[in-house]
């Protein structure tokens, strides 16, 4: 397979960027999207050029490092998938691909396609945890948890912190990310105690980081690779 790639290249946070066009040829259909970019980078090294920087690590859809907006869609068009789990067989009919970084002022571009997501870390630091110290935990089965609640908490806890929800939101809101963490703990008796305080602090931090508010576009749940529901946002709002 052959593809024409228009890739966003940007030297650093402070410089301007632009699309640069590349051609890749003889790509096997079982090649993953990121392996296709690896292939391009190998060619760039051959030519003596600086490689395209893009984020990746586990390449199995769980670490949340990879990003990329592909033809306008964060993590590509395929549902419930991270970029690293896209395969070129999914792109058989799209010979022209526009590849961009997440776009949100709270996620500054570091270089090319890589952005800084430390704002998410700071939101977690503001309250996205249960304030328990090592050593003070009671016996694990001393507190029973309704299975439905545990399952629901799990559904929210699967967030991988990739930031696709922000990238797709017209307001660049991090509401889904924040709400998922709040709901995860709200569903569990050991987390519920701090729920209100946690919600206030995390939302506050989200605003301080420059993320927008939710205005019910609901694009976030359609691009979320872990299919986290916007109903989490309702739970969060109820806590305020």
């Amino acid at each position, binding site marked *: 397979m052959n593809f024409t790639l228009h890739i966003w290249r940007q030297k650093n946070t402070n410089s301007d960027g632009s699309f640069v066009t590349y051609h890749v040829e003889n790509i096997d259909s*079982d*090649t*993953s999207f*990121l*392996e296709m970019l*690896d292939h391009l*980078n*190998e060619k*760039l090294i*051959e030519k*003596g*050029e*600086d*490689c395209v*920087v893009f984020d990746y*690590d*586990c*390449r*199995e859809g*769980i*670490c*949340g*490092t990879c990003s990329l907006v592909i033809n306008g869609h964060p993590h590509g068009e395929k549902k419930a*998938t991270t970029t690293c*789990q896209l*395969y070129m067989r999914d792109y058989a009919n799209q010979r022209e691909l526009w590849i961009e970084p997440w776009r949100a002022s709270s996620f500054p571009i*570091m*270089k090319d396609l*890589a952005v*800084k*997501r*430390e704002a*998410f*870390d700071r939101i*977690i*630091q*503001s309250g*996205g*945890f*249960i304030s*328990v*110290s*090592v050593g*003070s*935990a009671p016996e*694990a*089965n001393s507190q*029973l*948890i309704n299975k439905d609640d*545990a399952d629901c*908490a*799990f559904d929210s*806890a*699967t967030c*991988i*912190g990739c930031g696709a929800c922000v990238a797709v939101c017209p307001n660049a809101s991090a509401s889904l990310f924040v709400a998922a963490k709040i709901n*995860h703990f709200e569903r*569990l008796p*050991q*987390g519920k105690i701090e729920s209100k305080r946690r919600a206030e602090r995390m939302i506050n931090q989200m605003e301080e980081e420059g993320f927008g508010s939710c205005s019910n576009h609901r694009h976030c749940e359609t691009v979320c690779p872990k299919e986290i529901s916007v109903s989490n946002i309702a739970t969060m709002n109820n806590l305020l």
Partner: protein
Amino acid sequence: MQKFNSNVPTGPLENRWEKHKFDLALIAPQNRKKYNVIVIGTGLAGASLCATLGEAGYNIQSFCYNDSPRRAHSIAAQGGVNASKNYQNDGDSTWRLFYDTIKGGDFRARESNIYRLAQLSCNIIDQAVSQGVPFAREYSGYLANRSFGGTQVSRTFYARGQTGQQLLLGAYGSMSKEIASGRVKHTSRSEMLEIIIINGKARGVVVRDLITGEISSHVADCVVMCTGGYSNAYFLSTNAKGCNTSATWRAHKNGAYFANPSFTQIHPTCVPPTGDSQSKLTLMSESLRNDGRIWAPKNIEDCDKSPNDIPEEGRDYFLERMYPAFANLVPRDIASRALKGICDEGRGVGSIINDQRLGVYLDFSSVIEKMGIDKVKEKYGNLFDMYKSITGENPYEVPMKIYPAPHYTMGGLWVDYNLMTTIDGLFACGEANFSDHGANRLGASALMQGLADGYFIAPQTVANYLARGKFEEVSNDHPEVMASIDSVKSRIDKLMNAPKPKHSPDYFHRKVGSILWAACGMARDKKALEEAVKSIEKLKSKFWQNIKVTGSDADFNQTLEKAGRVADFIELGHLMCIDALDREESCGAHARLEYLAESGDAMRDDENYGYVAAWEFNENGPELHKEELNFEFIKPTYRDYK
């Protein structure tokens, strides 16, 4: 340098850790803020250690190469975490977990360390639940368990197929709490490139800012490495792409012994390789082996048929045939070797790579019939989805194909009972050390070990080290600090300006990977290993002649990052082969073809090789130190899973 002494306590096994803890020196709460500790790597071991030391009141500085601590590769662990709670009343106990682990490791690890690990396993579950880790539960509200690779009791706690993710997010949350408190100062996207040693003590590190390329030094009273394993030496592995040996290799070159480097685990249930462009392999949780049945066609002629067209009598459920007692649940090393044997016979299935089909079937059809598709979906849904997205095949309709892949490294930095390396003040936790898994790790034990080290062991032993030492002030312009910075800079210069730049880092990485996979993978023999040692030596000199790194070193440069890591993998790969050569026996994952029984089982030689091989770096070649393993409480037996 500290003496090469395991510092294992004496007395009854059950009391050793308690007694040892009592003997460790303490630091009063109001004095702890005067001590500084550097933690490299923030996966399960690192994040849990940062959280615990922070809570205690120490000053911690931590670094990771990822863009957030939440992304460390611990996150990819699927199956679960073991604990001897005996909630299922099936005869589990601390002793049984201890015995299973030491036997699973083919009696190549310390009794005292493993017993301590088994004792602490229950505390880990308590801690994780209190942090909000959403483990699977029964309708009664109690925690659920499952049986997992190589054990006959149900002691594994799990969170669907994402146990590692949930445990890491728990540790990351606790660490974040301490970052907010100001006691932990964390920097992401930073790679440790050198260790600073002053008067024989580890006193700091040199790191490179991966965004700007800036090199900086950081000093402290001691350093803890929680930097994971080195499966990526094989290039294709289930590890995240960034996982590397650079931190542990820097430590080794500065005097830390490297233990059992050839003990690498090749995991049986991975998605088979498909072609040359592949950059990594993906693990399918071992939990699939609980219900799924593994088979290959009996007849070679059937190998290219669709599996659904092969009748029951044409299928060879080879693990059930070879190991009737444990069947599909035999430990990883045994399952992997059996799979390889079937494919070497020509009975593999799937795409052909180098004239061989690399794969066997993992079949759920009878389970789906028995349990119903909904139950299977609830238990394994996310794994099936993952398989489908990688291969494009629907495992609810067609059996999955699996083949072994490098997954975990039991070897690592040699540490004593206090998790301290042979460099004073340099500790190693989690997969980065060699301590608990011997020659083979049992399923659901990696998370257990990383968290035991980080939450419960290192916080005590690091405090003891700090309490007993005297630490003179070290400034950032100390001659040793400057020398370490210079060594980092000159190495980067060499990578950027090779005499005849020709090949990319990936080119060399694939080369060393294929040498290691062929000679130091699932089956090893003297001749192949000797040749591999020579080829790696040649590759090393070629690397420094021909490595081509484009772009600038004062910039975000992933090619430069890779080049530095590959250079270290090449040197480590050399040591892996030398270690595999030295060990003229088969044990656990280390299968020397000369020392395999006809059945394919490993033939251990306890008399001559009942030791931990700890290698000292030496410009003229590695020097072997042996830590003899004494079994005072159990008797090493033949690992019979039949």
